[in-house]
């Protein structure tokens, strides 16, 4: 290969990686709501059915409309992804498509179930009794959760592959359940499910906190804030536990990823835990960070003598980009810690207000509301940073230890740049439109037709379609 061809090939690899990362990041920002929102809706609509309180109905109606839009964009961007695996990584799919088949097939069915019952839910307000309508949320919620589980097993297998036999670059036998048997699967699944709930709760809380900050201090906004904030803050400490378990699997199975997360160059016992700062490749150290001696060894092996593999264990070409991975890890852990701190503070304040008999329990001063606004972006950013850790830390492998990213990419060079540019333009345009629509929905207050009590509301007939329109 000539030098020019090498440059071209590595260029197209980077473009393909960029395209994949961008479309995955775009998709997951919507997919998390497909996982989280149905559980929230189960609660609010369930409360409405039991109490007949129109505020619960108003929240349900508002969220279901937002859900309709978010789910549709998530669905079409998910379709792009399933095509992209073949378009951008044909060699990867040709070799391992069969291994990952069961995960993708089951995920497809879960998505199928979600789409079917979502159709009933969104358009069935008048055709179903309130109870039957509420019941259609169960398959949506369960299928959304299962689809996370299934798709994460595929990613877990790419990180910690096993249960396949390869001869000369061809899979000769694979246990059908291989992705489900990956040791990374359970911890990754739990970590992502909690992340999805946190993102949903945080964004919901953030939207209602903004409403409260603008002076709409009514029951509708208080309750919206309460539901969202409860979800994000209750999940935050659990996320710490699941993250700790995940890091231990990474340490055992992908030692170089852990080294990159911690910015640890030299393999050693009594390894320190580095918090913050930037990894400097020239010196192999973390600059401007806080170093807690021996803590990494203690966390990973429960003993300060525990030996931690550093980046020096592999030749430079086989190391992940520690600057990127360590920074992303810092962002994720920092935001997670902040959310846990907020959860603790809110819990203390609520406990004190309860002892004093004050209502509402949830503090709603301006600072508290600003903190609640921040939980949404913080959760989303932490989730994206976490994926950067997972995927960036796996480099240069697409299937850890088995296939390099550079060997998986499509041969066609020049077209990828245009595709990438087109994808970015298209997605940014769609995202802008979506944000405008969601902002309109969020600032509109409760839908007018949702205020009149127990009566089953009108179907959310689209504005341009329905009789009289919704607005």
């Amino acid at each position, binding site marked *: 290969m000539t030098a020019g061809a090498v440059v071209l090939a590595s260029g197209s690899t980077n473009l393909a990686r960029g395209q994949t990362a961008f479309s995955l990041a775009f998709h997951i920002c919507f997919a998390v709501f497909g996982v989280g929102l149905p559980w929230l809706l189960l609660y609010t609509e369930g409360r409405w059915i039991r109490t007949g309180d129109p505020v619960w109905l108003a929240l349900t109606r508002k969220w279901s409309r937002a859900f309709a839009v978010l789910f549709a964009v998530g669905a079409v961007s998910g379709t792009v992804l399933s095509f992209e695996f073949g*378009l951008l990584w044909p060699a990867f799919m040709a070799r391992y*498509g069969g291994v990952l*088949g069961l995960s*993708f097939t089951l995920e497809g069915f879960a998505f199928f179930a979600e789409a079917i019952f979502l*159709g009933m839910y969104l358009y069935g307000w008048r055709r179903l009794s309130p109870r039957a309508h509420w019941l259609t949320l169960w398959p949506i919620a369960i299928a959304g959760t299962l689809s996370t589980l299934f798709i994460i097993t595929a990613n877990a297998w790419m990180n910690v592959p096993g249960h396949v036999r390869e001869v000369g670059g061809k899979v000769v036998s694979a246990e059908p359940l291989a992705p489900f048997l990956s040791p990374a699967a359970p911890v990754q699944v739990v970590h992502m499910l909690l992340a999805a709930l946190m993102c949903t709760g945080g964004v919901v809380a953030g939207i209602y906190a903004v409403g409260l900050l603008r002076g709409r201090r009514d029951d509708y906004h208080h309750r919206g804030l309460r539901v969202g904030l409860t979800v994000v803050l209750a999940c935050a400490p659990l996320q710490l536990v699941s993250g700790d378990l995940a890091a231990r699997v990474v340490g055992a199975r992908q030692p170089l990823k852990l080294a990159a997360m911690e910015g640890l160059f030299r393999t050693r016992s009594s390894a320190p835990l580095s918090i913050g700062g930037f990894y400097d490749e020239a010196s192999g150290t973390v600059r401007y960070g806080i170093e807690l001696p021996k803590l990494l060894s203690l966390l990973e092996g429960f003993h300060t003598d525990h030996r931690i593999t550093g980046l020096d264990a592999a030749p430079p070409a086989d190391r992940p980009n520690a600057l990127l991975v360590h920074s992303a890890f810092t962002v994720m852990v920092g935001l997670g810690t902040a959310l846990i701190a907020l959860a603790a503070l809110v819990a203390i304040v609520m406990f004190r207000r309860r002892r004093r008999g004050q209502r509402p329990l949830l503090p709603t001063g301006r600072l508290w509301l600003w903190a609640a606004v921040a939980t949404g972006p913080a959760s989303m950013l932490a989730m994206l940073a976490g994926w950067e850790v997972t995927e960036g830390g796996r480099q240069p492998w697409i299937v850890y230890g088995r296939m390099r990213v550079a060997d998986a990419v499509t041969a066609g060079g020049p077209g990828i740049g245009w595709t990438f540019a087109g994808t970015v333009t298209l997605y940014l345009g769609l995202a802008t439109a979506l944000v405008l629509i969601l902002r309109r929905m969020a600032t509109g207050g409760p839908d007018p037709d949702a205020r009149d009590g127990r009566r089953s509301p009108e179907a959310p007939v689209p504005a341009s*379609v329905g009789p009289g329109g919704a607005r």
Partner: protein
Amino acid sequence: MTAANLLLIVMVGGLTAYALLAGADFGGGVWDLLARGRDAADQRRLISASLGPVWEANHVWLIFVLVALFSGFSAAFGVIGSTLALPLLAALVGIVLRGSAYVYRAYGGGAAGPDHLWGHVFAVASTITPFALGVTGAALATGDLSEGDPARPFTNPFGLVCGLFAVTVTAFLAAVYLCRDAAASPATEHLVPGLRRRALGGALAAGTLAAVLLPLLWSHAPVVAHRFGEGSVPFAVASAAGGIAALVLLWRRRFTAARLAAGLAVAGVLWGGAAAQYPDLVVGRATVASSAAPEPNLVALLIAIAAGMAVIVPSTVLLFRLFARPDHSTD
């Protein structure tokens, strides 16, 4: 019957469901694009209302077929990914824009640009996708592909006519389905004559294009054409019979029966094409034998599909039954 063959049959079944259900949804977009005159707004409203609850579920059939393809026949998927990128990207752009524009128009309330603008995006995107998928399907039969020339599938005359045929067929299906939807409610009954005209026109156009496609098949895809002559004639006859029956039934305003006949006409084309394609997946590049995943994985896949279908099929029936009748409380 090997696991690979069984999986292929299941995939053709999934493709049929996609063509008959999602195809009609895309066809609705074609009619949205072509809506003219004083009934145009009412037509668009009817089309949009008929899509609402079902289009996302219908769309998933494509994902099902795609996942079965890359799980069961990974090597063929690798070939398709590296040679058919351009038509597939075009189909994807259509899919993304169609879906987003539909919900933006339905739920946006004008917050992100006027509804009619999103309506146009929806309509144009709905036309692009079946065209691009038709071109893709044709390329699998001709084998006229090249890694270095992504635009190649768009230069093949058989491929282009196939794309046009796919658009026509989806429009035909949509018009037939919409006839029954419109006839079911007094509020939309006035749209029936126009839709019936469109359905009849669509049937004739699709029939004409099919007649053009046959000689092109022989000249551009001789391998498949040969097998077509040997084994696909019964399917072609069934398709033609379905098409003629649909014409007669539309003429006599038997819209429910016309739906079934139209479905048979379209399914016959797909099955005939699939039978002639076998055992090639991409002619000249990938066969069933060369690209099938290991047998135990295929068996596991089939078991998973059987279990999944046991949940999905009854749920889909429930969905369609729930929305089979128009909503009279809106009157």
